């Protein structure tokens, strides 16, 4: 397939790996920020192909994983309302709340639907004027413009039976948080390609300068990730700490200005809680006051639902790059995609689930690594 196969080429991959091996002289720890990047790394077995000096740890950029339990319970409460059509991205349906997941809500009679775009909800709302259509607006800066657009369009088209349950988070505060931690091991970042396609990468420049850490904005295909790794390792070996853009085919320094404007019109910055991590100040979006009539939390009066999570699993440390999935004694045993014990196992993008889905809980992994 054009524009995809080029970035999965075996010969080019081997060249990049050889170059990384040539450049690297000592151990370095890199973090890929996005869940989509983690997914690709594990899916293609990239970490097995890299020299042992390069350690990849997995970042907090899995939007499904970090959506807090309160929000999921609020979603379930709304979805259980008779007269509600609850719409969500597919992989949110499987995330457990305090009492089952959205599939259970559906099995008990809730009208839960998978949509690919939030704008589809407007069509559903127009076709079902007697129902209230609610969209679960989660994700990073990547999904924010389309979610904002849905609210904007609903108002423009005077669609009154549509609202959004907002649980949006943004990347830079989480990176700053990781770098401020006294336990931090991360020396360089593969930055979030799709987030930067929207936001540009100017806001990463002060972070890179202040903490003296290379940030290479990186794509999601295997060759993107290998090239991003090479660029970050080069910087580290040469003692540089800059923001570089590996993903130039999608990302410009200023980003997508029209999309940023749409976000600003509809959302403003707010404190947000991250599942597995806790509250990070100014780390997400809330609806602007003028759109309060589209705020599902307000309409369905669910803001008071607070859920307590017992502290058992190590997902917080996995999300900060301090631990890896196999470091957890429950990984692949009590904790698996069917009975997830924590944030990083609940979505296919989560580090633990990616490790599990690509067979890393099975024994032959060591033999595969030796062979690669």
């Amino acid at each position, binding site marked *: 397939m054009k524009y995809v196969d080029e970035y999965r080429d075996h010969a080019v991959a081997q060249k990049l790996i050889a170059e990384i091996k040539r450049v690297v002289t000592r151990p370095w720890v890199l973090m890929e920020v996005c869940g989509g990047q983690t997914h690709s790394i594990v899916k293609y077995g990239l970490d097995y192909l890299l020299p042992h000096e390069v350690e990849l740890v997995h970042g907090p950029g899995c939007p499904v994983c970090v959506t807090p339990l309160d929000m999921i319970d609020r979603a379930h409460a709304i979805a259980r309302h008779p007269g509600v059509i609850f719409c969500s991205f597919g992989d949110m349906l499987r995330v457990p709340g305090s009492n089952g997941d959205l599939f259970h809500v559906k099995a008990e009679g809730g009208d839960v639907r998978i949509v690919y775009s939030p704008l589809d909800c407007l069509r559903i709302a127009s076709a079902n004027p007697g129902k209230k259509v609610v969209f679960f607006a989660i994700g990073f800066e990547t999904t924010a413009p389309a979610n904002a657009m849905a609210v904007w369009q609903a108002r423009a088209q005077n669609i009154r039976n549509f609202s959004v349950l907002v649980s949006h988070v943004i990347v830079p505060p989480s990176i700053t948080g990781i770098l401020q931690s006294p336990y931090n091991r991360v020396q360089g970042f593969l930055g979030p390609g799709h987030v930067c396609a929207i936001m540009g990468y100017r806001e990463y420049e002060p972070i890179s300068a202040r903490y003296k850490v290379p940030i290479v904005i990186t794509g999601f295909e295997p060759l993107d990730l290998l090239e991003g790794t090479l660029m970050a390792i080069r910087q580290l070996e040469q003692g540089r700490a800059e923001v570089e853009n590996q993903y130039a085919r999608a990302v410009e320094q200023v980003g997508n200005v029209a999309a940023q404007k749409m976000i600003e019109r509809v959302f403003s910055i707010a404190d947000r809680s991250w599942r597995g991590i806790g509250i990070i100040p100014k780390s997400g979006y809330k609806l602007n006051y003028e759109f309060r009539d589209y705020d599902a939390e307000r309409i369905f009066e669910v803001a008071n639902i607070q859920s307590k999570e017992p502290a058992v699993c190590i997902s917080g440390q996995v999300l900060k790059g301090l631990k890896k999935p196999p470091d957890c004694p429950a990984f692949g045993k009590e904790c698996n995609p069917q009975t997830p014990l924590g944030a990083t196992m609940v979505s296919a993008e989560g580090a633990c689930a990616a490790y*599990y889905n690509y067979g890393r809980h099975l024994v032959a992994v060591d033999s595969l690594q030796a062979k690669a």
Partner: protein
Amino acid sequence: MDTPFALACPVPITQHKTIVLGHGSGGRLTAQLVRDFFLPAFDNPALRKLDDQAVLEVGPSRIALTTDAFVVTPLFFPGGDIGRLAVNGTVNDLAMAGARPLFLSAAFIMEEGLPLEDLARITQSMAAAALEAGVQIVTGDTKVVNRGSADKLFITTAGIGLVPDGVSISASNAKPGDVILVSGTIGDHGMAVWSQREGLEFEGAIFSDTAPLNALVEAMTAAGEVHTLRDPTRGGLGTSLCEIAAASAAGIEIDANAVPVREDVKAACETLGMDPLFVANEGKLVAMVSESSAPAVLDAMRTLPQGRAACIIGRVVASHPGMAVLKTEIGGSRILDLPFVEQLPRIC
């Protein structure tokens, strides 16, 4: 955020109190139902093999028996409909034991309000599919339920076929050294159905591959030594390979670059974040054949329309028994594992 970690742990769903959709996905939840409910209740040697069909000795003959229920939404999709699926699904389950399908039954559960015009189209489609596969639908049943108690139309078919002498095909027969073949591109049916669901329309249609495979199987068994056959329906090729590796206690190695996937199916999978290896097929098979007869079997397959794009995707190996391993496009390795539930479109 650097105060002691505020760790998270949702309450695990260790047991389902009700049936959820995942129980019908063909993945691990389905396997749990079979293990916890059906196997203990009905236990017998034929069932215990857990093949898609039972092969039974009746007098001097070996008879293959199978049944399958069809609940697809929408009833009509590009390349097929529920009726064609219901005939081909049962024909193919018989063929995967090397059996010659002979007779089918069909039961119709209809929701009040189903247009007779739809029923007419579907029965005509079933008649055409039966003719194509060379089987007869010889008995059946009809039930109507209240509006809301079913989704328009469900069809259950059962079938019997004769297993020719000398044919012994089972998921447990794959042997190290065997060559692994697929009969054509994978993922077509699953993406054809996904692309018709609300909100997910793609430009240009992806067509279901629903087709009878009995003629193809006859040609293959006549041409060489076929050890294992599976039609990778729900759960896809990846699930079939995992099941065969486990049943045969052999290792499986396949090459991602060798697995044929149509460009439009690949594009739809990329867009939705799905893996074509785990997307349903309704007219494809995967075969383990002895190394020496692989060229002859492949040639025989390619003479028939259902096998025109047949190709080699990998090998059965002695190392890592019970496990299927994929060589990735860029030369890495990845273990294929049974999915828990059906794949869902990803957020990013």
